[in-house]
């Protein structure tokens, strides 16, 4: 399955502007009608029904405690497809123009449609993430606080149990994830606070990625989406996946992560910005595993250096 065929949704938390102002900002891009639903009052939802009949929601978020309640907003997109990324980016820019801001409490959650996945695919996904997690966490620049609390890494026990039981169906994986067969998952289940939240597979039908620090940078959001879609596509297309955890080596980190991104299919001009944003935090050199060779490595013996002259007897500046 191509990454462009996978459906997704996104949640973006913002502060400093009311939910109404954020809703009108989204409306300026998607058109349609804006409606204050207001119920339940704790979420105080606003809805923007776009010209295609899809509903964008702007709701309150109690976790954003550093601003007054009326200035907390969480944008919940409808189910989107790959072609909708430019429009989503425009909506993000509109929110920024309207004065929407982010702070350290804000985050971004990306939901990937779990319908095409079975237990084996989800196991692959967990293993791919587990293997590359040291690189991914570093690349995304996740704060220690977020990592300890809201986006915990894939646990060793989960991977061991997946390796041991090799789940084929979602039900089999459900038992592994919860430790028992949870037929009625609840929204606020504690197991959801993982960077890759499989609890949502049974609660809402999506795989949730909770890694991301908040941003209203449209290019970064596009990069995050493409990354999640590419990981999901890799998990769907692979027959199996290795779970041998990769060490984080600062010298080769950028190279290793670039290779990982290329393996995911993020190749070519289309994904150039994704590679740029995702590798921006990585130490090392993107082109050389052990760091860029120093000039003395190339020219070990200066005695062999010869200076060339051209026909006019001038030195053209080329030394071999």
């Amino acid at each position: 399955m191509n990454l462009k065929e996978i459906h997704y949704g996104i949640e973006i938390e913002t502060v400093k502007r009311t939910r109404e102002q954020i809703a009108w900002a989204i409306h300026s891009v998607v058109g349609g009608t804006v409606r204050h639903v207001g119920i339940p009052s704790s979420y105080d939802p606003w809805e923007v029904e776009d010209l295609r009949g899809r509903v964008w929601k702007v709701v309150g978020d109690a976790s954003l405690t550093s601003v007054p309640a009326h200035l907390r907003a969480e944008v919940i997109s409808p189910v989107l497809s790959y072609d909708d990324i430019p429009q989503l980016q425009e909506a993000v820019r509109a929110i920024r123009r309207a004065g929407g801001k982010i702070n350290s409490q804000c985050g971004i959650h990306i939901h990937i449609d779990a319908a095409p996945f079975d237990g084996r695919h989800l196991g692959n996904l967990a293993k791919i993430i587990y293997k590359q997690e040291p690189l991914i966490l570093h690349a995304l620049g996740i704060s220690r606080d977020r990592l300890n609390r809201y986006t915990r890494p894939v646990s060793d026990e989960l991977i061991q149990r997946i390796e041991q039981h090799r789940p084929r169906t979602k039900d089999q994986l459900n038992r592994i994830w919860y430790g028992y067969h949870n037929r009625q998952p609840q929204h606020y289940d504690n197991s959801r606070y993982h960077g890759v939240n499989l609890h949502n597979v049974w609660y809402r039908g999506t795989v949730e990625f909770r890694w991301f620090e908040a941003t209203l940078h449209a290019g970064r959001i596009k990069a995050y989406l493409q990354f999640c879609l590419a990981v999901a596509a890799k998990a769907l297309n692979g027959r199996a996946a290795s779970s041998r955890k990769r060490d984080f080596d600062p010298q080769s980190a950028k190279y290793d992560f670039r290779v990982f991104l290329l393996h995911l299919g993020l190749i070519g001009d289309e994904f150039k910005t994704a590679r740029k944003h995702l590798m921006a935090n990585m130490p090392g050199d993107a082109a050389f595993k052990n760091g860029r060779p120093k000039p003395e490595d190339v020219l070990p013996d200066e005695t062999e250096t010869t200076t060339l002259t051209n026909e006019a007897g001038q030195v053209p500046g080329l030394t071999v």
Partner: protein
Amino acid sequence: MKILIRSTTLDGEPIPGSGETIQAADCLEVVELMRGQTPFTASRAPRDYMTEVLSGIEGGPTQPLPEEAAAAAAEFLTRLARHGLIEFLPDDKACDPWPERFLEALETVRLSGRTNMLDHLEVTRLTAEMGYPEVAEWLADHRREYAAFVLEGTRPLGKNFGGKEDPAPCADK
């Protein structure tokens, strides 16, 4: 519905906030107005016009528009917005007159003493309960206008954007 057609740079990049406004009843009418802006485009069939515009923006053959005219117009505008070439503006909904028994309904609720008049949701519920369904419906759709009415005794005259722009006066004021 109301849209802003953004001006562009010589490279075709939209300039935020610039351009001219078009207002019409629905997407089809908006497209008709856009098409009628120049004699060159006015002579084209609507579908040809939309396809030509999109192919100029997206380059080469474009994804076909839906068969149905209204859906095609909606898709056309959505794709222009995707490229940042148009911006959807709020309708002048705030100009909607309040219902006939609006003041009477609010006075009834106020005299009943059953709620704080700043509690918009409760006031809406009580107006419906006390026999003013049309007022309740208006209140549900006009929360900001109601807040302004309670605090200032007036209605704001237009939806603003980001709280920065002055509301534009209605034509009938």
